[in-house]
């Protein structure tokens, strides 16, 4: 356990950026791809939200994600809220699919009512760490929540404040890609291996890691390693409180580490946290991303 809060159960899925598609199905059964703005709101840590469209009362509405490859889903967090005090919202089921192409077709298997979900975004930064539900669904390509809205008013919308998924890409899927590995270059970093735990104001710490080219046949060209902010930021920004280095001495906001041959591991890189005296108290999230310009 890192600091005062439990470790995340697995790798958080950056479905707003990893090729996945988020969809919404209103009461008429027609799937709609959600905008990048709405997807970012659902996969960030703030109380901002993606708003569903008006839908008929008392009908099933779905919101979910289709992944570009098979994944093992191991955890999720959901916060959804009614937008009218004259209505109430229930999440009747979490469902998974391994063949849907648009969120509505294919076979969807209900896992029953969610183990937990939040209906109030107050204190969300704590809830996203404390109330992650466990699940074990291997080799799926889609997950969705089944919502049911009742209302005596006219506002038939509701809000998705946060929808997070945890898990990994299934073995053998999407083989031509990068991963962040430990400093020895022997295994992928765990989902919580870049959890700083409790970070004191006016303190600093380092974590070493490497970049692994998983491909057996393709070279990863012109790799950039950078720190991405969460869409919900603070001042000074959380991402800005981190630096990267490939020599452990000189640091910058990003690194260009060149090419990695098939199966190769980079030199040891260092992530440095510098939490200033005026850092805002609380729980924060950022992420490190390694991006090849191409795979050839």
């Amino acid at each position, binding site marked *: 356990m890192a600091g005062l809060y439990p470790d995340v159960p697995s790798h958080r899925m950056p479905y707003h950026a990893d090729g996945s598609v988020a969809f919404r199905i209103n009461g008429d059964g027609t*799937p709609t791809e959600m905008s990048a703005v709405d997807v970012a709101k659902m996969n960030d840590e703030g109380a901002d939200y993606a708003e569903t469209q008006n839908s008929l009362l008392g009908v099933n509405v779905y919101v979910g994600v289709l992944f570009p490859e098979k994944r093992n889903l191991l955890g999720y967090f959901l916060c959804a809220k009614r937008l009218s005090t004259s209505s109430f919202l229930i999440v009747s089921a979490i469902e998974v699919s391994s063949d*849907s192409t648009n969120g509505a077709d294919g076979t969807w298997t209900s896992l029953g009512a969610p183990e937990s979900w939040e209906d109030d975004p107050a204190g969300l930064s704590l809830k996203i760490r404390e109330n992650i539900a466990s699940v074990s669904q291997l080799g799926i390509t889609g997950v969705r929540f089944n919502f049911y809205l009742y209302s005596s008013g006219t506002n038939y919308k509701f809000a998705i404040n946060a929808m997070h998924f945890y898990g990994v890409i299934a073995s053998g899927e999407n083989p031509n890609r990068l991963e962040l590995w430990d400093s020895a270059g022997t295994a992928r970093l765990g989902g919580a291996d870049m959890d700083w735990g409790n970070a004191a104001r006016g303190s600093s710490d380092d974590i070493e890691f490497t970049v692994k080219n998983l491909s057996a046949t393709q070279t990863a060209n012109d790799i950039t390693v950078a720190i991405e902010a969460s869409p919900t930021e603070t001042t000074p920004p959380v991402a800005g409180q981190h630096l990267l280095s490939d020599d452990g001495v000189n640091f910058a906001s990003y690194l260009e580490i060149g090419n990695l041959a098939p199966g190769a591991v980079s030199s040891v890189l260092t992530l440095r946290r510098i939490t200033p005296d005026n850092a805002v108290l*609380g729980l924060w999230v950022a992420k490190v991303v390694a991006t090849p310009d191409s795979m050839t």
Partner: protein
Amino acid sequence: MTSVPDAYQYIYENVGIPTNGTVPGSYQYVYENVGIHVIPASLSYQYIYENVGFGVYLSPNAYQYTYESEVLDEFPNPKIWFTRPGAGKPRDGIMVYGFGWGATAGTYDFELQMEIEDDWIPLSISGFQVVAAGVNGYDENRKIDVGNAIITMQHQRVLILIPNEAVIPGSRIRVKTDDGA
């Protein structure tokens, strides 16, 4: 009541519609189903069926989330990042850079020590400074550039003198603070 000699008989009659009588003509009904005129075409048709799914692409990128369980006001672990210059002779001044030392040297009883003959000897220090973040403190141009002594983010530095007891090829230094507990 009185009887009368009259006799009554009801008469019943069915008044039909008069006809025009028989005619010599002959009638035959003609039945017809008028269809739409079709023209056989020489074209060939094949229906195309399509299920338009969402476009998804495989990403080669690697992501790793970083978490801060909580930013707190608590005792920080002190760190030394680098010294500048990296080497010197006894009585030379060396600037030591790092973070987590406290607002003043007295906040956490800051002490720098040098390892000489298996003992950690306290070094005399001067010029303890907390340097505030610069213009590019936390933006995309933030950096620690040792060669040019540029640190855009908040940090601390202190000047030490290499003691006369220092020996070739050199000695390690470390930082020690006390949380006052």
